């Protein structure tokens, strides 16, 4: 491992990318297993509104936002000559991710704690 901001961005991109693929399977399972009528639907809904799934959902939000913003950064790198701003771009991605994540996670957590 050669430590650098570039490596951190690459590692986070891989991590969130793999996490999103795994999420997709979980998503298909949740949807597929809730199709057995009103009772099974309600049961599944109660499960995904529990604390574990809420936490996973908040993590999912973080992964989606980072992966999306990092993708925008890569497009900028691909199409404009900005390699000398590589570190600033990485920190800009982190800052944007944190801002959007906070804005998104607060309503999710407020909704969760109100429903307790």
């Amino acid at each position, binding site marked *: 491992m*050669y430590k*650098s901001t*570039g490596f951190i961005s690459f590692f986070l991109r891989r991590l969130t990318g793999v996490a999103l693929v795994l999420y997709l399977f979980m998503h298909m399972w949740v949807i597929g297993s809730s199709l057995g009528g009103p009772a099974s639907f309600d049961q599944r809904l109660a499960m995904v509104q529990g604390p574990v799934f809420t936490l996973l959902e908040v993590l999912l939000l973080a992964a989606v936002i980072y992966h999306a913003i990092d993708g925008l950064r*890569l497009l900028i790198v*691909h199409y404009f*000559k900005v*390699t000398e701003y*590589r570190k600033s771009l990485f920190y800009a991605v982190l800052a944007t991710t944190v801002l959007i994540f906070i804005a998104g996670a607060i309503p999710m957590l407020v909704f969760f704690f109100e429903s307790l």
Partner: protein
Amino acid sequence: MTTKTVTVRVQRFNPEVDKKPHLQSFQVEMTPETTLLDALEGIKATQDGTLTFRRSCRHAICGSCAMNVNGRNTLVCNQPLSRHLDRHDRVTIRPLPFLPIIKDLVVDRSNFWEQYRRVKPWLIPPDELPETEFRVSPEEVAAINDAEQCIMCGACYSSCQVVALNKTYIGPHALLKAFLRVMDPRDSAVAERLADVAGTDGVYRCHTIFNCIDACPKGLDPTRAIETLRQMAQKRAHYEAERRERQKRLAEPTAPVAAPEAVTE
């Protein structure tokens, strides 16, 4: 002259004795002028003659002495020891990462050279050569972005995370060389070169991690070269036609040459 004693930690590995590499500390007397290479030479001369490393020119042009200093790839010959000391007056020198170690600080660079040969790093001249000389404009030279200054030290190759994971990747050094040839108006194999670097082991394998830029002791930008190749590879026929057109004018002056001003004294 002020001298002080500092600790140089060197990664040692003797394949005949050791199972895995280990760090060994040496106490070295230094002055402000001492380079990292001076420190290694001093250790080899006075403390442990078995210490093995590559070096040749000591002027940052041969590319022999690239090593990993405190986790960063660099040449040791042009780096002052004082600049790399931590707050305990200590520096750690390891061989280039991700490459097989032969002994101590010497790594096996066979794969590096194999990938280099793969991009045909030589000039493929046009069929009709000009009688006198090729004329290349200042803009065309500027577009090469100093890529010809590469000294093939391997610092970028061995810092690349993609190389670490995939030994068939062409690598930043060879792609920079391919870029140099593709941008050279005298080269007549643009489409072929672009097709080669656009394969599965080429420019699209790069994850734009930028380690190559950070590692380059010459301040070159392999990532930008790779990005340029990526864009050009999508329009191979266009650039091939452009090059053929350009090569019809290779012997002509590219711009009126200003007469040199008279020297008056």
